[in-house]
């Protein structure tokens, strides 16, 4: 329970972090006091427009930001499940190469898995689609589309997003792109199988699924642009009058900077996607050098292009994309910590400044993914320097989060467990990135399992854990009641332990030099033998993660919103 007197004493005028959610941890008699306080510091707005101009077709085409946010949330959770299931198939193959997949192996056509045994091409496709779905259709829309659209208007005292129709369009275009990705599984040749990075010339030679993937990327870029414009205008223009920039909850800052990154970083990938589509459909050679021989035949087109051009354009998006994944998670953790401890964030201004710096710097570090492409020492030194510099604001933010906890009384709720779980996981993910930011380390570790371990520690036990925490934290706002705490703890411990079981051994495998893209887990390589036995343990750990999601889904279903239930924490600011 939170001490209401301490809470009111520590709050300055204006809307502050976790304003509504604090109420979830108050005694019933204190809840009214807290809500009254909020009414005082958040005076009534003179304009209320939850549903500006509904599109024809009533609720299905609603423009209400909360309804659309929930759709973003449910859809992205469904895509996360799909991406996770693809990973389970891969993990089976890696643990027991050549052994038929049990139960469902016979469902796959012989062109993908004859006798239930994955073909290498299908393994590649699973890898490409796992990454694409988890990043573009799972984590980003959950963090920005669901949490952002749901909470930002509430936290800034607005009643709606600035452009309600854009909110809806952003969702529907995202959904179309998602279905497009999935359609790849049923077209001849299967889905894209050139990795989530779609490096040419492999991607240029890929199946029809690659075309669908590229069209999906174009649509996702459009969806992101609409959502980002909406978010930025909402924060800049619809803040409650008098709510200064430094009064904004950090969550709002995180969403704002995420939107800026999406707005500026995605278009270059869209231009690259157009060019790769041209390479595939019109025989141009933007990414194909002259003299390429494929299957003993010269590749068509004039040649003269460069695969590095794709890499530059791709990573110009894809590195900021890491922060697009991360920043909403940092915002969520900040809210949980502030609400749980009942205190302001330690070093709020430092955190905001660091996040702004992080956003800007994320646009000038992309080529650290390309140290092995033969770039000159000057360029290499530049990108090594920017990469090391960008680690500083991350450390500042993490340190401030830890210092927020200092001396606080932590209610060990499920959401707090997830927030506390995020901190060391993100720390591991960040610290293991440092050797990859230096060319001398990256030369050895590039394209090994070490890289997989590093970025999965950021995204899976890092970002995903935080997003789960956010769901537990804000579920009362959705359904009018909290999720079950006991089930939540089972979910937390199963997920955290399982994820560490998957990703921790990857560092050892990577340090041994095992490549990330081996269909048989490196069975044919001498240097992989010392670590190959980790794969079965990692697969069992993946099953633990899968089992741990059952109580989560059950929890959501049992505590789903019901029409008759009023939302108890909602502050109705009526004039």
């Amino acid at each position, binding site marked *: 329970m939170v001490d209401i007197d301490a809470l009111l004493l520590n709050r300055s005028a204006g809307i502050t972090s976790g304003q509504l959610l604090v109420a979830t941890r108050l005694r019933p008699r204190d809840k009214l006091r807290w809500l009254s306080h909020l009414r005082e510091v958040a005076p009534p707005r003179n304009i209320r427009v939850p549903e500006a101009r509904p599109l024809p077709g009533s609720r299905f085409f609603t423009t209400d930001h909360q309804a659309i946010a929930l759709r973003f949330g449910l859809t992205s959770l469904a895509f996360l499940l799909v991406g996770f299931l693809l990973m389970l198939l891969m993990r089976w193959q890696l643990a027991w190469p050549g052994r038929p997949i049990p139960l469902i192996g016979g469902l796959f056509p012989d062109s993908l898995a004859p006798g239930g045994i994955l073909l290498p091409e299908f393994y590649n496709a699973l890898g490409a689609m796992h990454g694409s779905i988890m990043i573009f259709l799972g984590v980003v829309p959950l963090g920005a589309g669901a949490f952002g659209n749901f909470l930002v208007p509430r936290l800034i005292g607005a009643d709606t997003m600035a452009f309600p129709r854009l909110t809806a369009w952003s969702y529907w275009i995202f959904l179309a792109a998602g279905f497009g990705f999935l359609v790849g599984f049923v077209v001849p040749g299967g889905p894209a199988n050139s990795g989530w990075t779609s490096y040419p010339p492999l991607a240029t030679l890929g199946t029809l699924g690659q075309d669908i993937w590229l069209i999906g990327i174009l649509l996702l870029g459009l969806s992101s642009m609409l959502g980002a414009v909406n978010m930025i205008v909402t924060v800049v*223009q619809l803040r409650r009058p008098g709510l200064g920039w430094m009064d904004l909850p950090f969550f709002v800052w995180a969403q704002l900077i995420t939107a800026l990154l999406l707005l500026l970083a995605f278009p270059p990938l869209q231009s690259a996607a157009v060019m790769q589509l041209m390479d595939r459909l019109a025989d141009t050679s933007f990414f194909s050098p002259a003299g390429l021989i494929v299957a003993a035949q010269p590749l068509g087109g004039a040649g003269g292009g460069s695969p590095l051009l794709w890499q530059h*354009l791709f990573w110009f998006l894809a590195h900021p994309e890491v922060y697009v994944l991360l920043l909403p998670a940092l915002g969520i953790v900040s809210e949980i910590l502030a609400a749980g401890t009942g205190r302001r964030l330690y070093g709020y201004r430092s955190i905001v400044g660091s996040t702004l710096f992080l956003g800007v710097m994320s646009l000038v570090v992309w080529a650290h993914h390309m140290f092995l492409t033969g770039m000159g020492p000057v360029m290499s030194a530049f990108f090594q320097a920017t990469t090391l510099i960008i680690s500083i604001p991350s450390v500042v933010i993490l340190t401030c989060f830890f210092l927020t906890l200092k001396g606080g009384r932590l209610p060990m709720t499920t959401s707090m467990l997830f927030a506390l779980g995020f901190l060391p996981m993100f720390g591991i993910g960040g610290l293991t990135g440092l050797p990859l930011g230096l060319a001398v380390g990256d030369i050895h570790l590039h394209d090994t399992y070490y890289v997989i371990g590093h970025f999965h520690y950021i995204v899976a036990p890092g970002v995903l854990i935080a997003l789960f925490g956010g769901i537990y934290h804000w579920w009362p706002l959705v359904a009018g009641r909290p999720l079950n705490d006991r089930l939540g703890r089972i979910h937390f411990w199963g997920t955290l332990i399982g994820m560490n079981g998957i990703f921790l051994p990857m560092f050892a495998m990577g340090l041994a030099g095992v490549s990330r893209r081996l269909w048989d887990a490196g069975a044919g390589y001498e240097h992989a033998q010392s670590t190959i036995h980790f794969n079965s343990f990692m697969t069992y750990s993946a099953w633990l993660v899968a089992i741990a999601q059952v109580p989560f889904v059950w929890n959501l279903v049992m505590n789903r919103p019901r029409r008759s239930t009023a939302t108890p924490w909602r502050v109705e600011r009526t004039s």
Partner: protein
Amino acid sequence: MTNQPIPYANEPRPDTGLRNNRLGLWLVLASEIMLFAGLFSALAFLRIGSTDWPTSALEHGLPLINSFVVAASVLVILFAGRAVTRHEGEFRLLWSLGLGLGLLVLFIRSAEWSILLGIGRLPSTHNLFGIYFVLTGVHAVLLAGNLAVNGWILVTGASLARQDPARHRERVYGAIVPWLALVVVWFAIMIGFFV
């Protein structure tokens, strides 16, 4: 729920001095700039990496004529933008003329493409042609979108101008600024390929 309008849609917010739609418009343009930045950086990358860059093989006459038409269209559109606050009839005339010039730009572009394709300068024959077709194609798609918006304003503008002149002006503004951006992109294309 009420049907009151969203704040600052048509009037500026006092502390930021911005209207929602204008800020949104500038953000969309920022995104568009990044899209073309990707394409122009590809042009630079390919050109620097190529030992043979036969710009003389491109059709020169029609793009030059198109440049004059584009320049004329921007003048007409700007005058139309000034007229919207003074005289609706003058605005409609100038706006129609701007729309016509925009269509002429697309027509000349298609004629130029037909000539290039007809003499075998396909996108696949050289990266110069490839990136030229991509850049001018993306430009044409965005121009066509802008023309569609301009046509919609022409059709629906008269009644809106009577009912809500401020909103009408905002719509016109919202169509002019992307037009100007596309004009800038067009001249950047000209410089990138012909200068």
